């Protein structure tokens, strides 16, 4: 089922990739180039993750929050302040981050596991 969530487009552009939640320090290690970072909130301390991400989406924060600041600095599309509904997007879901309009959507593309196999 396709999902469309609204937040604030905090860094312009459109990014696409597989969703990758970061909920703990261990998740940072496993983040791959081209994935879309999903998190409750982020920090400037996650510079390495931001340099790999195709897009950033957070539950909390607005245009002045850290996720927005680093995403703009790195030139990565970002939508922030989506709220708890973001939890409905699972790891591996194909996500489109529209940083111009503040919309995050999932597509009909099949969910993929981390090793690239269709599920």
């Amino acid at each position: 089922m396709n999902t469309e969530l609204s937040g604030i487009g905090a860094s312009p552009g459109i990014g696409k990739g597989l969703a990758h939640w970061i909920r703990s320090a261990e998740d940072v290690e496993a983040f791959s180039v081209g994935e879309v970072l999903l998190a409750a909130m982020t920090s400037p301390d996650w510079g390495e993750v931001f340099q790999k991400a195709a897009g950033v989406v957070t539950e909390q924060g607005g245009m002045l929050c850290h996720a927005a600041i680093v995403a703009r600095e790195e030139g990565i599309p970002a939508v922030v302040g989506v709220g708890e509904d973001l939890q409905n997007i699972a790891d591996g879901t194909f996500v489109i981050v529209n940083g111009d309009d503040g919309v995050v959507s999932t597509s009909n593309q099949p969910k993929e596991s981390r090793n690239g196999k269709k599920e």
Partner: protein
Amino acid sequence: MIALTPPSLANIKITLADIPHTALPWIAEKHVQYLDDRIHKIGPLTEYLKSCNEVEKERNEFVEFVDQHARREDLVLGDYLAEYTTKFAGVRTEVDRQCDAILQADIGSTRDSRLTFWEAFAYINEVDSLHGMFLTSGRWYVNVMLPVIKELVYCTLPKSVGTSERSAIAYDISRHVVTPQFAKPTSNYDIALERRFVGLLIPILTYYDRKLLFLFEALANTPEEAGKSLDEFVRLVNDQPNSFDSLFDMGIYPPFAWHELHSSRRPRRASVSYDSAVAPLLESVTSGFEERLDSALKFLSVFKDYELNYNNYNYKGRFGLISKYFYRQTSDRLSSPNREAFLDAILGDRFFEALEVLRAAPEL
């Protein structure tokens, strides 16, 4: 016009002179762990700050202070900043006073005196945490810059928006932009106006982003060996302090910028000039509001200075050093499992939880 700037930060060498160098690897490790956990556990921390009974009064007062100013049709940013400065300086002065007491071992030598100090320490730092949340994020209901952003919206709304509705519309848009989770949707909310404003705001925010993230650039030429391990970075800063003079001058202890060091190796894109960053706002100002817009931009600059000051003092400098030194001293007095429970709470910025552990620890 504006002299209400944040307190200046002293060279961090002054603080380092009072901390045994043998403690620095532990302090650096725990502080970086604290910075990581703060983010990974941001949900529980936000919930904790939103419901911490001991600072409920301060939390409610702060939210009301920001929100009431933002809602005013006759908003005067100078008055708002003056009131904010008093609040900020009051907390900082007390935090700094406690830091001095810790470094001078001036907190008494009995369990009762230590507990009394910890009670005051927990309270003021919980309030300081609230200030940080309201200054640097949009995680809970208001952000300090909400009135400034509202003023920027107010001055740049299309001329077709009438005077009578301009303030209310500007407030709604600023809430959506700064704290979207807490902006209540109204049936006549104009998303097109919001997107128009976001487009005007992004360039000036991008200009300040670079200033806030200055460490990426400042650490770019740090010797490769510093990146091998945090211990190695601490050793390098001890052995070659002159290489880090510019950061020391800014009140920063370089090993606390461990993550920034690793991110600094990539070339940065060219920075934008202030003039080009403000151009979209200036070109969109409604006739008659030019001076108000110019004034609001100056206030934005001051509040961004507060944000940078808070980050440098609390996360990268003096408070980070002294607080972790104090936690080490305190945890050394505790037996397991009190030590583990104390460190878990205090490194998560849950000051009153940590205080409860200490109250129940006869060995303190």
